[in-house]
C-alpha cells in the first residue's frame, strides 16, 4: 500500500489521471444534483435561449434547441460510462475465457480459437462496428453489442499470450500432478496471475471504448437523439464552426478529459501492479 502511494506521488501525471477519472465518474453519478437543468438531458426545447455562447447560467452555452450544454455533457458521461462498463463486463469474460482455453489446452483447440480471433482482429474495429450497426438498428443496446463484438478478441490475445507463458511455470505442473481439474488450473491458478495485466488493460480500454462509442455516434450510428452523446454533439456542432464553437469544443474536450484520464490511470496501474510482482 505504501509503495502504491509512493508511485502515485512520484508521478504527478497519475494523480492528474486520478483526478480526471474522479471528476468524470463522480459527475456522472451525481448528474441529477450538480447540473442546473436536469430535464435538458431529454427532449426539451427552449427557443428563447437557443445557440447561446457560454454565459451564466449556461456555463458552456446552449445547443440549437436551447438546451444547456453542460447538463447534456454530464449526462453524456453517464451514458458513455454505462456503455463502457457494460461492454467490458461482457467482452472481458468472453475474451479471457477463450484466451485461457486456447493458451492452456494448445493443439487444435488453440488453432481453431486463435484463428477465429484473428479473423475478428483482422477487420478494422470501426469498420466492423459500422457494418454491424448498419445491419442493426442504431440504439444504445446495439451500440454495446457492436463494440463488444470488436473488443473481446484483444483480451483473448492478451490472456492467450500470458497463459502460454504461465503454463510453463512450476505451480501449474504442481497442480496437474496433484490431479487438479483443468478448470481449476485455468481459473484458479493461471487466471490470478493474469489479473494485473487484465485490470490495466481494462482501465486503459474504458477510455478507448468511450472514444469508439463517440466515433460511432459521430457517424450517426450510435446513441440516437434526444439521448445526449458526446460523439453526436460534436457531429451536430461541427456544422456551425467556427461561429458556435462551444457546440463542438466542450463535448470534444469532454471526450479528451475522459480518455486522457483513463489512460493516465491505466499507466499508473500498470506501474503499481508491475512493481508488486
Amino acid at each position, binding site marked *: 500500500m505504501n509503495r502504491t502511494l509512493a508511485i502515485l506521488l512520484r508521478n504527478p501525471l497519475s494523480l492528474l489521471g486520478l483526478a480526471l477519472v474522479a471528476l468524470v465518474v463522480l459527475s456522472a453519478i451525481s448528474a441529477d444534483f450538480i447540473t442546473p437543468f436536469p430535464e435538458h438531458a431529454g427532449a426539451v426545447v427552449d427557443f428563447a435561449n437557443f445557440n447561446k455562447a457560454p454565459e451564466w447560467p449556461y456555463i458552456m452555452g446552449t445547443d440549437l434547441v436551447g438546451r444547456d450544454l453542460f447538463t447534456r455533457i454530464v449526462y453524456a458521461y453517464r451514458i458513455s460510462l454505462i456503455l463502457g462498463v457494460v461492454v467490458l463486463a461482457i467482452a472481458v469474460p468472453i475474451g479471457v475465457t477463450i484466451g485461457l482455453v486456447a493458451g492452456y489446452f494448445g493443439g487444435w483447440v488453440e488453432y481453431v480459437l486463435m484463428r477465429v480471433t484473428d479473423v475478428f482482429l483482422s477487420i478494422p474495429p470501426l469498420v466492423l462496428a459500422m457494418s454491424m450497426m448498419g445491419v442493426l438498428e442504431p440504439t444504445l443496446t446495439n451500440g454495446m453489442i457492436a463494440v463488444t463484438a470488436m473488443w473481446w478478441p484483444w483480451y483473448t490475445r492478451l490472456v492467450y499470450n500470458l497463459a502460454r507463458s504461465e503454463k510453463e*511455470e*512450476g*505451480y501449474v*505442473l*504442481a*497442480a*496437474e*500432478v*496433484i*490431479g*487438479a*481439474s483443468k478448470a*481449476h488450473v485455468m481459473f*484458479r*491458478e493461471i487466471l*490470478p*496471475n493474469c*489479473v494485473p495485466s487484465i485490470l490495466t488493460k481494462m482501465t486503459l480500454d474504458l477510455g478507448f471504448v468511450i472514444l469508439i462509442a463517440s466515433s460511432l455516434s459521430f457517424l450517426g450510428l450510435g446513441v440516437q437523439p434526444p439521448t445526449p452523446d458526446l460523439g453526436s454533439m460534436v457531429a451536430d456542432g461541427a456544422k456551425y464552426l467556427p461561429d458556435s464553437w462551444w457546440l463542438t469544443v466542450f463535448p470534444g474536450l469532454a471526450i479528451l478529459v475522459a480518455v486522457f484520464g483513463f489512460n493516465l490511470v491505466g499507466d499508473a496501474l500498470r506501474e503499481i501492479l508491475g512493481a508488486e*510482482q
Partner: protein
Amino acid sequence: MREPSRVTRPLLSLRSVSKTFTTAGRMVRAVDDVSFDVAKGECLAIVGESGSGKSTVAHMILGIYPQSAGEILLDGSLLPARRALIHRRAIQLVQQNPLSSLNPKRSIGASLRLALDVHGIGERSARWDRVGQLLEEVGLPADFRSRAPSTLSGGQRQRVAIARALACQSELVVLDEPTSALDVLVQARVLKLLNELRAQRGLTYVFITHDLSVVRNVATRVAVFEKGRLVELSPTETVFTNPKHPYTRRLIGAVPVVTAQEAELRGRLMEKSNASA
C-alpha cells in the same frame, strides 16, 4: 507364501521403458529401453548429466507424458497413460525450483489445501487445521499458511513443497533436483528433513540429481544414466567405492576433490548446522 512376496514386491517397476520425442521432424530417443525396480522405503537416486534422460524418466513416472514403449507398474498394477485421480494421489512430486512451484498469487495454505480438496482427504472443516499440521511436520510454523510465497525464503518454500507432497499421504515421492536451487546450508537442512521423513513415514523416493555429494547423503541405491540409457544400478557405497561402468567413473572423477582435512572440517560443520536447524 503370500506374505513374503508382498514384502519383496517393488513399489515401482519400469519395464523396457522408452521415450522418443519428435522435434522439427527429427526423432530424439530421450530414454532408451530402461528397466529398474524401486523397493518400498528406499531412496533411489537417478544421476546423470544434463540431457541424460533422468528428468524424462521422472516425468513418465508422474504421468506428465506417456512413455513411447514399455510399461510402468505401481505396486504391481499397470499405470495407464491417462492417470486417474487415484494414480495422481499415489505419486507426488517435489520440483527443482521452489520459486516457481508455488503460485505467487495464492497463499501457502491454499496451495497445500488443493491436494486435500482434490482427493477429498479429511473433513472439509478440518482441512485448514490439517494444512497447519503439515507445515509443522516440515518444521514451519502453522500460521505460515496464510502467507504469500513471496514472503518465504527459498528453503522455506521448498519445505512447503515437501509438505504438499506429504499431503496426499502417498508412498512414492519423485524429487526432481529438490536441493539444487538452494544454497549449501539450506541444502543440508532440507536433505536432513527428507531423510527424517523417509524414515518416519516409510516413504519411497526417486531422487533425480546431478549432485553426487547429495547422492551420498540420501540415496540407498544409485541409477546412472548416460544418453538415455541406464548404464549402472548399484548400492550407493558400491558406486562410490567400486564403480563398474566407465561413465560412472568419469562422473565421480568429475566431483571437485577436497583434501581429507577439509572434508573432515566440512563434515563437522554440517553436523553442527544440522543440529541447530
